[in-house]
């Protein structure tokens, strides 16, 4: 399952989706909004996506992970819109027979999402705002 959503991410339904009688390991990664970046105080984040391309790039990443590791199930959900501190911006869930594959695939997916998927994050501080990574 690959999704973009402006609603809060539901961990329980993601886990239910990953249920498989052959799965011995599930690794679930949550990217969460934290209250500071380089010691500047964050008020909230705004996530914006180029939806059709974000979905197809996430699909490519999952397809590529499936070629490298024997995945029994895989969930990738990314939030868009306004997120407050403590909210989950992204969930990656991977189910495999053995744990090494789950850890490696999950990490590959989140690392690659951050490199290629057209989603942009604006950090809104108490004293200004900035699009992350955008400036020289």
């Amino acid at each position, binding site marked *: 399952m690959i999704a973009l959503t402006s609603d809060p991410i539901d961990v329980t339904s993601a886990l239910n989706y990953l249920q498989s009688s052959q799965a011995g390991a599930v690794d679930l990664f949550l990217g969460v909004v934290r209250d500071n970046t380089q010691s500047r105080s964050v008020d909230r984040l705004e996530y*914006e996506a180029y939806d059709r391309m974000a979905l197809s790039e996430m699909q490519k990443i999952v397809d590529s992970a499936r070629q490298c590791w024997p995945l029994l199930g895989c969930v990738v959900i990314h939030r868009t819109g306004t997120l407050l501190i403590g909210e989950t911006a992204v969930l990656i869930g991977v189910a495999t027979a053995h744990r090494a594959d789950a850890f490696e695939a999950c990490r590959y997916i989140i690392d690659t999402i951050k490199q290629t998927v057209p989603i*942009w994050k604006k950090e809104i501080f108490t004293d200004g705002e900035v699009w992350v990574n955008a400036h020289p």
Partner: protein
Amino acid sequence: MNSSANVLLFGIARDLTGQSSISVLLAPSACVSDLLTTVHEQYPALLGIRSLLVAVNGEYAEADQPLTHQDEIALIPPVSGG
């Protein structure tokens, strides 16, 4: 004859231009690098972005990829999802 292409803007590109899409004049044989040159001439503020890629029909495009009228074209500033 030149014609105009609609180009989608996101993130900092949208903020710097104040527009979520712009119209760019393109020669019939224009490719992705021609588009970027023209975009930067029309909107020099976009030069302040660390890097700009171009997506054509939802796929990252190379600099020499030719553009057609039917293409959905988007500027992709440095991504920061996750």
